[in-house]
């Protein structure tokens, strides 16, 4: 039997890897992938505690997170593709017009 702390540790590793990817990478698509990793880490924690408490509410929250993630990816990738068509780049350091 695997202890709950191991699942939580795995989620921490996943979240830290996602965070480092968001901070280091300059390609907007990879930044998006790393955000997905962090959302997955959060989902893993939700499901772990749902299992621990034998309560299905955690699964409901995972469903909500997944739907929001899908909406976010659809809109985000549409923005990225439109930006690339306009500017021929997806480097987040070169896309800074909205900075005050």
């Amino acid at each position: 039997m695997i202890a709950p702390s191991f699942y939580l540790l795995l989620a921490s590793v996943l979240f830290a890897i996602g965070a480092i990817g968001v901070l280091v990478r300059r390609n907007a698509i990879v930044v998006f992938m790393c955000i997905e990793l962090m959302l997955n880490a959060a989902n893993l924690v939700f499901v772990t505690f749902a299992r621990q408490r034998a309560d299905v509410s955690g699964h409901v929250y995972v469903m909500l997170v997944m739907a929001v993630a899908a909406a976010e990816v659809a809109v985000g990738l549409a923005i990225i593709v439109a930006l690339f068509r306009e500017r021929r780049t997806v480097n987040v350091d070169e896309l800074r017009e909205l900075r005050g």
Partner: protein
Amino acid sequence: MPLSDLVFYLFAAMVVVGAAGAAISQNLVYAAFLLLAALFGVAAIFAWLSADYVAITQTIVYVGGILVLFLFAVMLTNRITDARHSNPAVGKRPAALVSLGLFGVLAYVSIETPWKHFDVPAGGETTHLLGQALLSTYVLPFEVLSVLLLAALVGAVVMSRKETPKP
């Protein structure tokens, strides 16, 4: 060590290696395929936590939907030949510091806290309970979410369409 634990550790290693590869790899296409390994591993771990419906949804939504979207975006925004040079990394040292600190705090909490072990037996299939919860206790978030999803998808279609000349 029982065989099931061994298989679990294999899946955990697959998640970590896939995620690290997706975050570190210079090649966008490799990053997308390593993300596939990580997402599959997470689905397997959901199955380990006896969350059958969530595991299947993870496979269908993430691997079948989101990852394909990512691959399309990679192919639409980069010439495959220069995928190797289109993914630069900056500020490695401060980023590593921040994320190691974050990991330290999270790992300390998850190891040091005396979590209650999984003493409740796994309750079999969850689809029935999940459906009941979604349509009774959580019916308002569920409906709001459907409207959000519809709005987001219509927005995505509008945004990614080619500009048509105004009449």
